[in-house]
């Protein structure tokens, strides 16, 4: 049995420090109130302990002043804590603009991770020190939860949708990665490591390994193999809408609504094409459920993103495009 007794988790991100400050403040407040109550209880218990031949104590019905005081004061403290907690929560949920994106797919019982360059990992995530990393997550089967205690972050990976969280590592090292949402037999084996590396070392690591094609290239190959291009070809008169500059743009739907074409929308359009049909087109697209894996969908989305980026570069002089920003950020608040 190991005899070390850690009492506080390591801080490996800037957000971890903010969470700990909040935690310690509420802890101090809690200890204060717990001591106040228990000290008062014990004092009364000793001071007013029953003595032989005690007369019945005089009745006290209560005090409105005290009642109001011990409702209002805790309420004020509670509201202050709420505001602070919400502020930290906002920060945990709002990644900065210039994040590096890593795709995460949870599957019983492993974490599959894809870097945009095409490098893939299982149960290990290599990230550079100091760079904000946004995780774009989903699950192939049941709900999992991506939890790195050293960063104080946790977010469920939910089948059927994309969820997101982010962190900026501030301390090199290897940190636990846990699945925090119970997912069956080997739930406690669905663990791994996050390795925070110096930026140069990270670049070397990224370039290493077997030469893989980038996610966007893999997506392009899928796009052609699945025959998407048959309908989604450039130019008017095609059976499907053009996909250039789609990512990040606003799409008008049948029925008059409009929606931002983010990752969630693109995934839904591939797997459930009838759910939101673009205005002016017929709902004739077949579903690709079962034909393409969650990782394949992520690759297709990377490919569509790259097509938006190219087109944005080509027309960069003419109009400001939203393609450079991640729409995922706009959805979160």
């Amino acid at each position, binding site marked *: 049995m190991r*005899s*070390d007794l850690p*009492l*506080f*988790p390591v801080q490996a991100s800037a957000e971890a420090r*903010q969470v700990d400050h909040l*935690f310690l403040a*509420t802890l101090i407040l*809690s200890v204060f109130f*717990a001591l106040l*109550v*228990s000290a008062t*209880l014990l004092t*009364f*218990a000793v001071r*007013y*302990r*029953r*003595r032989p031949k*005690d007369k*019945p*104590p*005089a*009745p*006290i*019905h*209560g005090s409105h002043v005290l*009642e109001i005081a*011990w*409702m209002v004061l*805790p309420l004020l403290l*509670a*509201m202050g*804590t*709420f505001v602070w*907690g*919400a502020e930290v*929560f906002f920060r*945990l949920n709002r990644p900065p603009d210039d994040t590096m994106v890593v795709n995460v797919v949870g599957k019983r019982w492993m974490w599959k991770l894809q870097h945009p360059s095409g490098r893939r990992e299982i149960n290990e995530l290599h990230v550079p020190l100091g760079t904000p990393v946004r995780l774009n997550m989903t699950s192939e089967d049941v*709900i999992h*939860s991506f*939890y790195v*205690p*050293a960063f*104080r972050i*946790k*977010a*469920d990976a939910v*089948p*059927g949708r994309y969820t997101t969280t982010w962190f900026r590592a501030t301390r090199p090292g290897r940190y*636990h990665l*846990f*699945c925090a*949402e*119970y997912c*069956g*037999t*080997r*739930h*406690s084996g669905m663990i791994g490591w996050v390795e925070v590396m110096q930026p140069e070392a990270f670049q070397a690591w990224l370039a290493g390994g077997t030469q893989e094609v980038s996610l966007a290239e893999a997506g392009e190959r899928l796009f052609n193999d699945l025959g998407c291009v048959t309908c989604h070809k450039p130019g008017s008169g095609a059976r499907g809408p053009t996909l250039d500059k789609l990512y990040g743009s606003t799409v008008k739907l049948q029925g008059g609504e409009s929606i931002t074409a983010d990752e969630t929308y693109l995934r839904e359009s591939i797997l459930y094409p009838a759910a939101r049909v673009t205005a002016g087109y017929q709902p004739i697209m077949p579903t690709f459920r079962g034909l393409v894996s969650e990782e394949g969908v992520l690759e297709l989305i990377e490919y569509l993103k790259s097509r938006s980026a190219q087109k944005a570069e080509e027309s960069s002089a003419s109009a400001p495009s939203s393609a450079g920003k991640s729409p995922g950020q706009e959805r979160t608040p």
Partner: protein
Amino acid sequence: MSAPRSGTNYLNVSYGIRSWLFSVDHKRIALLYLCSVTSMFLLGGLFAAMVRMELLTPAGDMLASDTYNKVFTMHGIVMVFFFLIPGIPAVLGNFLVPMMVGARDLAFPRLNLLSWYLYTVGALFTLFSIVIGGVDTGWTFYTPYSSAWTTTNIVPVALGIFVTGFSSILTGLNFIVTIHTMRAPGLTWFRLPLFIWAHYATSIVIILGTPVIAITIVLLALERVFHLGFFDPALGGDPVLFQHFFWFYSHPAVYIMILPAMGVVSEIVACFSRKRVFGYPFVAGSSLAIALLGFLVWGHHMFVSSQSVFAGMVFSVLSFLVAIPSAVKVFNWTATLYKGSISFETPMLYAFGFLGLFTIGGLTGLMLATLGIDVHVHDTYFIVAHFHYIMVGGTVMAYLGGLHFWWPKISGRLYPEWWGRLSALIVFIGFNLTFFPQFIVGYLGMPRRYHAYPEEFQVLNVMSTAGASILGVGYVIPLIYFVWSMRYGKRAPSNPFGATGLEWRTPSPPPTENFPAPPTVTEEAYAYERVPVPEGGAHAG
């Protein structure tokens, strides 16, 4: 004050198994429930012991992973649905609500018996599922794992919980009607004992909340058996919708567990300090406030579930609000002691334990309501520690305190006071040693429901397992001396603790009709200034 002991009481009025199984006397039904929930508590405790044994070492080396997953699931299901939720209302409430309002029985005695049968049928379904292999979803049954992926016996357990829900509903209905219509002459609402206010508030939660879990369970079973897509995204459903439905009941269910416990504590604190409960209308009103606000906070179980940030904020602020009425109660109980004449018999020791542990449970609950903290500690042992401080430190302490307080009334016998005090002390120490280390290991990041865990968490887990063994001893001692006292205990007078309240104005054990003559009430509850102070409590003399 003490009525003359007549020859017959509810225990010896008739004999034979049929006289119990077909009894419509609320006191006998309370005892049927006592046997049932105690059996389920022992079963749940056995599962807890297996969990703690496994976690003694970091490797998953005692049980197979699937077995461990079933064991913690069955621990949760048995304890929550078959012990904590029915516990105080069905045993103490059943026995005391009619007596405290001065009635002969509950409003619907046959429904009351039916509720025990429904409970039993539900428990049997669950036991059947355990015998044929159990369930491994956790007591929360999250989809799509529960509806599409697990191969274990979801349907019989779901049926068990569904049926047991109706027993809760019938009990709640019975309490509400009884409290409204059967109060003794002179017993106005603001003369009611706080135990009654607490059970009234609990009954509201039961009646409004339980149908929701019943419907949710039906939807889950339909999806599992007929593949109707409610929750499974592969069938077009929404897995997070299940969490909304589940917690819409299961968070208020926590108040079903704790509100009656608060009622018990009000009675005990008043009696053993010989004082009126400080701020009676505030303590009564806070029960109703908790019952109503408790329905608006379910989303705080889902801060990292992909629920929107805005929803997270709303549920966070409401969770802070629901803490205020709980705090009001704690402050009022503390103030009740002021200038009292306090004695420390077993029930009072349990009440003191409740106050300390519930305070810690409540304060850590506020930490969890704080959005920025919950992201880190959600689904870790910090949560496990928090809700055990509320459910075990709160509800079980009060339940044991209440059992000791009313045992002389229920059984007509006294238990050995020295053993009572010793067991209260052992329970308090064992409880803290078991669950306090879990706050630390949780903040360190140990996820809950882990069969194996990293080595650096071992020392804290060993402490927890050691504490659990002590706690187990603390629970077994009362079980032994309660059973012992039924035959060998000294006969109890009608009012051994010199308490106010109608239930003490009738012999111990009471006659079937509760009161030899219908009582009338002429004063507020807890008029202890008019009652002589007992010397050393019941057991000294």
